[in-house]
């Protein structure tokens, strides 16, 4: 498929930076809509959703979360209206070409704030952060995605995310991200007996879900019983291979690694995150699964057409 890249370059691929930006905008807009759910306007949102993320975190992480929860709880309606409006504005702003840069910049700041004050840094310092359930936090992944797909004037890159950070920088970020996921998978809490069953079916995960989906989840969770350590080690190895795959010189290996990353992201989303648990009316976002897949798409190698290659090598001014 021929598609138009940011500033007019023609790239022979279905994965363009503009489409990824639109997808990110859709996720932000969805978050804004979810923020308008009645539950979010109650004090429960601050008490049960925000404050609970401080549990198990060190004081320097927990205190800001507790402070934010207290402030939000005291002004539940005003605070939540503001949050919803901000996220809807981010979604529409990223979608619109004229406001894209500003909105992406604001989204990085906003997501950073949410990661610290609303997600307790994704529970990274609790000792039981599990990528299967959303660690290192979807807010962090929103920021990373925005940085990776930042609109740049010149794009002499070979994949959509190589704009702002450059090829090496983007690949390094990918390796760090998936390396962290591999490390978290091997945490003692995540390979202990019953860890996968708890992650996949624990808490209030199945509340409000359709029965057919709960049945699938229960069945898959039962398959992990007695194999937690083995599954954790194999999964960590897969994640480690994904982490380094983007450095391969052979395009087929890169594509295989990225395809595996998309599959892992979707498996996390379906099996461990229950689509972000929207059936309870308490979901604030679709969780990390779709974002991991989106980031993987941002690294998908692009095949330049002859005209694009000529455009890239032509002196400035000719390109237009």
């Amino acid at each position: 498929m021929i598609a138009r890249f940011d500033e007019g370059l023609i790239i022979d691929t279905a994965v363009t930076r503009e489409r990824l930006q639109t997808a990110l905008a859709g996720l932000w807009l969805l978050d804004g809509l979810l923020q308008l759910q009645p539950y979010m306007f109650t004090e429960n949102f601050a008490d049960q959703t925000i404050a609970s993320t401080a549990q198990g975190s060190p004081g320097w992480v927990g205190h800001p979360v507790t402070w934010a929860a207290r402030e939000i709880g005291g002004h539940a309606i005003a605070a939540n209206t503001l949050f919803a409006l901000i996220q809807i504005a981010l979604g529409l702003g990223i979608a619109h070409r004229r406001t894209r840069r500003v909105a992406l910049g604001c989204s990085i700041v906003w997501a950073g704030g949410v990661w610290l004050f609303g997600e307790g840094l994704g529970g990274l310092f609790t000792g039981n952060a599990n990528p299967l359930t959303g660690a290192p936090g979807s807010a962090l992944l929103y920021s990373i995605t925005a940085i990776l797909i930042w609109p740049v004037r010149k794009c002499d890159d070979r994949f959509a995310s190589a704009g702002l950070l450059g090829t090496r920088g983007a690949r390094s970020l990918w390796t760090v991200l998936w390396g962290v996921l591999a490390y978290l998978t091997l945490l003692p809490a995540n390979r202990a007996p019953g860890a996968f069953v708890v992650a996949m079916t624990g808490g209030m995960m199945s509340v409000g879900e359709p029965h057919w989906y709960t049945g699938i989840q229960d069945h898959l969770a039962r398959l992990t019983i007695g194999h937690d350590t083995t599954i954790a080690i194999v999964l960590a190895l897969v994640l480690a291979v994904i982490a380094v795959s983007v450095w391969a010189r052979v395009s087929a290996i890169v594509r295989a690694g990225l395809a595996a990353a998309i599959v892992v992201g979707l498996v996390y989303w379906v099996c461990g995150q229950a689509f972000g648990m929207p059936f309870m009316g308490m979901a604030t976002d679709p969780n990390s699964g779709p974002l991991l897949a989106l980031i993987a798409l941002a690294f998908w190698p692009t095949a330049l057409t002859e005209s694009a290659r000529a455009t890239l090598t032509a002196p400035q001014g000719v390109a237009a």
Partner: protein
Amino acid sequence: MNAPAFLPAAFSILLIIVAAYALWRAVAGPLLRLGTHVDTDLVLLVGSIAGAGLVSAWAHTLPRTVWAGLFAAAACYFTARAGLNRSKAPARNQAIAHASGCLVLLYMFLAGVGPSTLHGSTAGQYTMAGMPGMYVDTTIAYPALGLVSVAAIAFYSVVVVAHTEPKAAADGSSGFAPGSVEACRVIVALILAYAILSKLV
């Protein structure tokens, strides 16, 4: 649970404004030869009026079965239009968009989307956990279908916004506020998504 009272009220008023604007376009467009698209304006008009009744009780108009029948017929009509125009991309895509909108509204009327039946707002209060069955308020049937609709609405809206500017320039249209129609479509779509989400629990 239900949202703060100002929210559904504001959304209903917004939908009525959109309906009034669509009515004006539908009437004035042909008379003044302004090149409006009657299908789009009528869908906006009817969808906004129906949507307002789904969000606020005071904006209730026709019985649910009448609305459901109307949107079922409209969905069939636009699906047939899409089939007839399958080789003409703009007309086909527009018909598909209208058919999809009508199907979402049909789902909303059949699934039980409507104004809250609770007296008083739960906003700003401390309630029990947001679990189904713990409140007297009614909830929708087939919530998975509703959530899929919400996600589709969100992504449809950003695609509309992403394409608003280039399309207007490329068409060289006279500027009878084509951007405002796109804005109205996004507003109606987002409010319908809100109406679905507010009845999940």
